[in-house]
């Protein structure tokens, strides 16, 4: 009896999961499809799903107009740099909170997270003025610092929860064997937390890649990443949806590919720590 119910339930669950997955993926799929339409087909009503004359003219137009390579390079440097910088700061911070907690550790963790609740525009002017004074406006290093700072609470939280899963006795044993603090963190803790660190790295790269407020407001021509590339194709006075879709597809393609190949690590890492 149980055997006859299980396959049906499994089929329903599978169908439900695929339906939800398709719903979530649909906007991206629609963007990709629109990028291969002409501008006239892109606004057709009723919308055309597959049966249209596929064209690469939008990609050609985008490549002719914009220096995609420069935007892509800036995105890679900014997202990668801010992530590495964040991890370097967050590992020692998370270590101390996980293994040498004080009375205020929980409060500090909550306070760190609460900074994420401040609307970014509230600190735009102070940060803009700081950037002018420090010569960081429209520089990749400036953006790396800002993105590292805004994502740091999440990195610390994630690493803290991964580290909490590691038995403190192992670190104690290492200490008794004469390991210094540096050796303990580098040779004992880090290798054991590799899945957690990897998923934190990946998630932070995705967050930094998609960040649009600071990357638009603190850059001009030199350090602008792919978010600025997309913004340059949005227009309230003119229908350029197909070109905008082509630009969006080109901007999200690298991170989609990265996510696709690393989904196993990302999922296992996320279900290992607190985000489960």
């Amino acid at each position, binding site marked *: 009896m149980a055997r006859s119910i299980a396959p049906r339930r499994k089929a329903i669950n599978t169908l439900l999961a695929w339906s939800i997955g398709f719903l979530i993926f649909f906007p991206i799929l629609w963007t990709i499809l629109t990028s291969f339409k002409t*501008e*006239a087909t892109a*606004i*057709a*009503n009723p919308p055309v799903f597959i049966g249209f004359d596929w064209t690469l003219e939008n990609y050609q137009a985008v490549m002719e*107009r914009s220096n995609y390579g420069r935007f892509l390079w800036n995105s890679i440097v900014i997202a990668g740099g801010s992530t590495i910088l964040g991890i370097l700061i967050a590992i020692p911070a998370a270590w101390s909170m996980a293994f040498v907690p004080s009375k205020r550790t929980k409060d500090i963790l909550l306070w760190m997270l609460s900074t994420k609740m401040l609307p970014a525009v509230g600190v*735009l*002017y102070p940060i*803009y*003025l700081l950037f*002018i004074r420090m010569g960081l*406006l*429209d520089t990749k290093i400036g953006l790396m610092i800002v993105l590292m700072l805004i994502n740091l609470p999440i990195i610390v939280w994630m690493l803290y929860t991964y580290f909490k899963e590691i038995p403190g006795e192992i670190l104690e044993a290492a200490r008794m064997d004469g390991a210094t603090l540096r050796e303990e963190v580098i040779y004992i803790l880090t290798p054991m937390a590799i899945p957690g660190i990897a998923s934190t790295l990946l998630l932070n790269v995705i967050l930094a890649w998609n960040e649009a407020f600071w990357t*638009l*407001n603190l850059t*001009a*021509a*030199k350090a*602008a990443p792919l978010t*600025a590339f997309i*913004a*340059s*194709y*949005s*227009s*309230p*006075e*003119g*229908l*350029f949806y197909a070109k905008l879709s082509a630009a969006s597809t080109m901007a999200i393609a690298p991170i989609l590919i990265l996510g696709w190949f690393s989904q196993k690590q990302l999922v296992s890492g996320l279900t290992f720590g607190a985000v489960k």
Partner: protein
Amino acid sequence: MFVKNALRAATAISLIAAAGSASAETITIATVNNGDMIRMQGLTDDFTAKTGHEVEWVTLEENVLRQRVTTDISTKGGAFDIMTIGMYETPIWGANGWLVALDNLSEGYDAADILPAMAGGLSHDGTLYAAPFYGESSMIMYRTDLMEKAGLDMPKDPTWTFIREAAAAMTDRDNEINGICLRGKAGWGEGGAFITAMSNSFGARWFDMDWNAQFDSEAWANTVNFFKDTMDESGPAGYATNGFNENLSLFQQGKCGMWIDATVAASFVTNPNDSTVADKVGFALAPDNGLGKRSNWLWAWALAIPAGTQKQDAAVQFIEWATSKDYIELVASKEGWANVPPGARVSLYENPNYQAVPFAQMTLDSILSADPNNSTVEESPYVGVQFAAIPEFAGIATEVSQEFSAAYAGQQTVEEALAKAQALTNDAMEAAGYR
């Protein structure tokens, strides 16, 4: 002696090098993603060939650009050497001393050729602070075939009463044809701009001479009620969320009998590559109510130099190139006369080649019928047709247009929307110290 000569030679070489680097600059220009601006980017090589200066473009969506350049200029960030701004920002920023006055342009540039309405809207105290790249007004674009089918003739200068009747006559719900498509979308530059320009023709104004809000006036009630009634009768479903792009899409697909919007849309709706009704479009002046003011707006996208730029000479050279008569000729030679930037120079409209473009004369007539310094029937304390050129306006008008959009959508009555608009405008003006 040898050392002295060597030093002299080194000094001379470094001076020449310095002069060389000073004469060839790289300027950064912030601009919007409009067709004319993109065309200009494609022609930048011509400017570089003539002057040696290189150009780096930062192209952003209009609202993002507005926020970005406002942050930069108000903090003296210096990220841009030229900014693309509109008629709203120019007089305010000029008054703040944030822009370089363009009162020393070269003789060959012929600044006197700029359309007076444009020059007036881009000046403060008679000094030009931004050079118009292209200008626009609003006008009626209508389907000649549907008008004929309805047994009507569109006058050159129709009234609102005629427009409402014509819209009802052209509406064919079974065939998804809406008699009229207008902007109802919230936002000071979307539905807010339209209803403000429309209110001028109904005798309404935003403020009296003491900066008191006027939404409790009969003229405003007439404006918003007329808009809502007309759109409920003959407009598309969900018009409360339709802006320029949504209406453009509807018109191009043959689903609007009339569309009152920016004159630049004329080149889109008559382009057979994008529009299914390209050969069936006529043009007329925006409607009035016999009170001496029409309901068309006036806008220009213009190039301005932020005060404090280190590359002012190169920036001036670029502005002189991009807004010159020669640039118009350059675009015409490459893309045809229908694609030259309109609405900035008198000489363009005297050119027989441009006069042959079907919407050219109506664009000029529309621009000439809007006066930013005298836009309302009763006297008002502000400059601007579809806006009041004060820093607080954008924020207030966005909120007011949200109230109006909620009324269009049936979430509240027109009376409630007007009462809220009155209260929030007076509160904001009091907080800003006007009252």
